[in-house]
């Protein structure tokens, strides 16, 4: 394998994992933008979606059907979460909302343990997510291609939605100032519901891709991705969708790149470097890569 091929291979790897981080980060950022809530339970929606798909697949559903149902279930779960836990504390201090989201995570994960059990289950990915293409020395698993392409398509759709549709523009306005948005005649409950539904749906998609990539699901599968997505969203500039996307890819790239170049046992220091670099990024751009300085801060 030539040096060039090696680079290309790692680039594809980075894009693939970055896409998943980005998908997750978008949902976090949308909700954060409007409510200033860091929704750690966002990761559990991945779990909800992939278990739903798993059970449907076991019952013999075709994959696409199961996937669509799973994404819808994730969206509904997100809506329910908002209605039950987050709406009553809307406007509370940031830390109170953060803790609430921890609590929701704990509830969801433990309920999952009690109902489906703590053990991992194999996730039967369909052939189009588990074939492998070979290009010379390069091998690309179709799930990676699907992840990259799906993310790209969803990003385009989402950008269109946020820029062009009334609901999308309302969402941006609500993210700026909830009260003013209401005064413009925006039904913020509806907008917030949209944000949760879309974000949760994206988490559902990410969950399915994740499950296909990893090959299994378990009640705690969302924890690590949501942490990564949170970090990605902040690094990108918290609360903005483009920021979340950029942050996701930056994080994915850093992880793969450092794992790729650190020799031998020193690769165990990868996360130290990744997170060290992230701190550096923040020191250079204190509001994230795409963040803008708010004037009030002075």
């Amino acid at each position: 394998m030539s040096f060039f091929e090696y680079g290309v291979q790692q680039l594809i790897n980075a894009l693939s994992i970055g896409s998943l981080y980005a998908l997750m980060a978008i949902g976090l950022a949308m909700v954060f933008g409007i409510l200033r809530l860091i929704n750690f339970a966002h990761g559990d929606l991945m779990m909800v979606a992939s278990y739903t798909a798993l059970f449907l697949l076991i019952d013999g559903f075709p994959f696409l059907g199961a996937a669509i149902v799973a994404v819808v279930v994730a969206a509904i779960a997100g809506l329910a979460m908002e209605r039950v836990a987050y709406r009553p504390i809307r406007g509370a201090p940031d830390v109170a909302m953060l803790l609430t989201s921890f609590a929701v995570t704990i509830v969801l994960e433990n309920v999952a343990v009690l109902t489906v059990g703590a053990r991992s289950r194999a996730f039967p990915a369909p052939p189009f997510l588990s074939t492998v293409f070979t290009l010379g020395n390069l091998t690309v698993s179709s799930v990676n291609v699907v992840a990259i392409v799906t993310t790209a398509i969803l990003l385009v759709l989402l950008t269109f939605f946020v820029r062009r549709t009334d609901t999308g523009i309302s969402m941006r306005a609500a993210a700026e100032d909830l009260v003013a948005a209401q005064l413009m005649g925006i039904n913020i409950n509806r907008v917030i519901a949209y944000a949760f539904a879309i974000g949760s749906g994206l988490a559902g998609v990410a969950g399915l891709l994740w499950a296909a990539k990893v090959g299994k699901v378990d009640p705690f599968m969302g924890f690590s991705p949501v942490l990564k997505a949170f970090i990605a969203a902040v690094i990108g500039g918290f609360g903005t969708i483009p920021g979340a996307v950029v942050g996701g890819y930056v994080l994915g790239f850093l992880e793969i790149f450092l794992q790729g170049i650190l020799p031998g046992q020193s690769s165990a220091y990868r996360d130290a470097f990744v997170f060290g670099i992230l701190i550096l990024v923040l020191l250079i751009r204190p509001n994230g890569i795409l963040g803008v300085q708010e004037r009030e801060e002075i």
Partner: protein
Amino acid sequence: TAPAPSSTGGGEAASAPAETIKIGGAFNLTGELSSLDVPAANGAKLALAEINAAGGVDGKQVELIIRDGKTDPATVANITTQLIDSDKVVAMIGFTDSDSALAAGPLCQEAGIPFITAGATSPKLPSQVGDMMFLTPFGDNVQAAVGAEFAYDRFGPKAYLLWDKGTEYTTLLADYFKTRFTELGGEIVLEDTYQSGDKDFSAQIAKAKSLGEQPDFYYISAVPDDIGTTVKQFREAGITGPIVGGDGYDTPLLVEVAGDAANNVFFTTHALMDADNGSEAVKSFIEAYRTEYGHDPENAFAALGYDTMKLIVDAIQRAGSTDGAAIAKAIEETQGFPGVAGELNYSASEHVPRKGVTMIEVKDGKFTLAAEMVPEKVPAP
């Protein structure tokens, strides 16, 4: 059938007639380690039911008081104290990781109560805790040595080594493997690590593939939850060589997740846990587990939990007493105890059982026996 449980101040009591022999079962039933400890606890409960159905010990029923350590060091210590102090157990079993075993062990040691860990495989445990500490599984040094010797003979002297640096089990296994393998004259051509929780191994794989010449085999030291994923992703990237590992591979997930890709995978473990090809004891264990819990044993810890429970009761019976020292002595005198996960032998100086190591090969999606081995040389713990 097990008698109806009754209240015992909080602990789960699986049986409790008038006079019982109480054994503490300390497991991390929730939290990160639950995927290892729940099967172990289930195995122990299964054994308990069989023991009581067979009349218990000298007519007395055995009670297993299970408490949840929640994968939290402080809680682990709390429940140990509770089991010893409030529940007055005569012996304790449980925990599949050294962190918890080492948090609980010294408390048992101080109270003079024997403690058998159902899954922690660090061979140093008894020397770290004292004479009340026993292991049911073999030490990692033993299985790593077997893995190294087997692979060196069968595949050749060039190895690739990947391990999870975040857990003790995978670290020890990799260390012992490296020691024994280089001692044999083998060479680790590329060594790489991943972080606990990583589920994407593409970067490591690309690095392995960029080696000019591929190694003779790939030794991957991973926990049960990761192993299916690793094998799947290695194979998908076009790496076809033999993959070798330890008893973390002994889980149905390996074949379920990796499918055909799991062929040409070899691993060391306690016994061939196969419903079709295994021994009679294994077959009936799997059958009983399925009946009780509705699915196959999740991993080797189920069998280890089962054996641990059986072992401690056997020792109590042989000791004819519930005195801690007597029970410990009985365990030390155990010879040829027929566990599901291999025969157990202890002595006063060996609290880590002398056990044969089973080498499994995955063929056509099935676990098959590749070898039964005792290592020529074991790295010092």
